[in-house]
């Protein structure tokens, strides 16, 4: 069966002065339709680079990335923009809503770039806002909402385009623990409804909400398996100690 996401031996190398930094050092992994995967790692582990490549915001130095069977690692800017628009829904730590646009207009944005008619945009945005329980706030500006509400708007925006993959980058990082739990519960619910969700985080307590964990360290995959396996949440140092 064809994987939804497939990394084949991906390297991402940054040139820093004289030395090369291997942000991703030969990563291979696959994600299938309907999975809920957390990509975990400390800062510098390469998880952000992995997320950028999955999100078609960046291209690998070598190796190939297949999204729904299409090799996107060699695509140009316009084609990548189209993939982002049609297949990916982003949820960011800082919500990344546009301050001068209303909630409704923010949610309509991906549909606007997809060339959807005004009428259909309005209807689909309204449906997406209803799903996150913010239908009554559609005329408000983002600044008039609480952090949790803003993050729900950004989830609605990610859902509006009906993407194949929902990519959440530290979605709870800016929220208090209660609203953070609500957002995570919502992501779990989306996954239960059949959506593929990829969560990027440094926090084990959040990563365990996913069904599968991929742990990165120094650009390499050091664990890839179910989240309920005890090894999934063990810090690398502890692993080394355990080995001794």
């Amino acid at each position, binding site marked *: 069966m064809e994987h939804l996401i497939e990394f084949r031996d991906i390297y991402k190398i940054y040139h820093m002065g004289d030395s090369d930094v291997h942000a991703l050092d030969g990563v291979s992994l696959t994600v299938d339709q309907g999975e809920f995967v957390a990509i975990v790692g400390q800062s510098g582990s390469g998880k952000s680079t992995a997320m950028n490549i999955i999100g078609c915001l960046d291209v690998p130095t070598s190796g190939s990335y297949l999204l729904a069977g299409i090799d996107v690692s060699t695509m140009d800017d*316009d084609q990548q923009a189209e993939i982002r628009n049609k297949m990916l829904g982003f949820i960011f730590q800082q919500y990344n809503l546009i301050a001068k646009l209303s909630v409704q207009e923010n949610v309509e944005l991906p549909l606007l*770039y997809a060339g959807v008619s005004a009428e259909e945009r309005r209807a689909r945005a309204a449906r997406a806002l209803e799903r996150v329980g913010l239908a009554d706030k559609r005329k408000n500006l983002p600044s008039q909402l609480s952090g949790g509400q803003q993050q729900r708007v950004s989830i609605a925006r990610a859902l509006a*385009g009906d993407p194949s993959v929902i990519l959440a980058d530290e979605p709870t990082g800016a929220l208090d623990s209660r609203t953070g739990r609500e957002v995570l519960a919502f992501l779990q619910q989306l996954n239960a409804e059949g959506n593929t969700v990829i969560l990027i985080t440094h926090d084990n307590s959040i990563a365990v909400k996913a069904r599968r964990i991929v742990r990165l360290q120094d650009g390499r995959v050091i664990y890839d398996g179910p989240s309920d396996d005890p090894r999934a949440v063990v810090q690398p140092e502890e692993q080394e100690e355990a080995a001794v």
Partner: protein
Amino acid sequence: MNFTQSFRLALKSLSTSKMRSLLTMLGIIIGVAAVIIITSLGHGMQVYMNEQFESLGSNQVDAMILGDNDSSRHVDIEDMFALVERYPQYLSGVTPEIRAPLTVRHGADEFTRTTVKGVSETYYSVERGTSMNGEKLAKGRFLSYVDAQRQQSVCVVGAYLEREAFGGSALGKSLTLSGVPFTVVGVMDECADVTEGSGDDVVYLPYTQAVRLSGTTSSEYLFAATSRETAPAAKGLVERELFKIFQDSDRYVVLTAAEMMDAMNTMLDLLMTILTLIAALSLLVGGIGIMNIMLVSVTERTREIGIRKSLGAKPKNIRWQFVIEAGTTSAIGGVLGIGLGILAANLLTWILSMVLGSENSFRAVPTLSGILVAFGVSVAIGVLFGYLPANKAAKLNPIDALRYE
């Protein structure tokens, strides 16, 4: 992402910082207003001059004899009259314009700077009510055919002489020209500022008298063609006659009123083009102002650009958004500038009518073509100068833009 959406978005983003938008537009506003004012003045001046020419008679043909008169070849006044009689379908009349160096006296007063002109009855058209130089008759009558034929000692005086020599009532009184008494039969209306040596300090006498008293002959002839349409043909006839006399086309110049008007209009057009270009320089400065503020705006909105890109905006969508925003800024500036320009042109017209008198017909009229060109140029400048910042925005790397603080 179509045009109306981009336009609405641009308006929204301009309205979020009104003061900055207004200051950005100021260069364009001033530039467009300057262009409108200058083209209005130019157009008004053209209309005014053409009206003046019309009142002089668009059917007029002027012949000037150049060089010394002492050679064996010279123009006999009667030859010119004969020419008019030979071609009545083209020429309806002619007057010599003799500047006679005669001393003007009234009682003990001598008027040394007064212009004395010998003319025929054709000089003043009764039906049009003006002379060939645009003066009007105030009182009495102008010189007649009989006056010239019988060498009558009658004259018409200008407004200055009437006031200074006759205390305001000259009709029927007399003055002397080189000792010969002349009776005043008419007074011309004010045509200048009624001062010594001006166009109002003038005496007209029958050309036959001017020749007899001064011994000079005429070096200028003013022909009246039968109509505006026959003026070019009439000019040809006069030229042919003068060539027959002089055998040298450098000895005379013949111009129709239409040609003089054209020459004047060409000069005015050139002048206006130069002035408009100078005014347009401030449009250029305005364009640079827009570019500057758009570059700032792109930097400030780096994160927004990153968000839009992450949601699927293509480089061309971003470029289009910023170009439209720059174009909208300059277009609004253009509209405000047009308003300001029209207001200023009307104000100028009002001030000029106050200064020059209300019967003065000068009006600074904004032209539709001037307005359209000013608007078009301002939009074009916005788009042109907005392109560089827009392109910068379009080329931003989405990750860097998203992480920008």
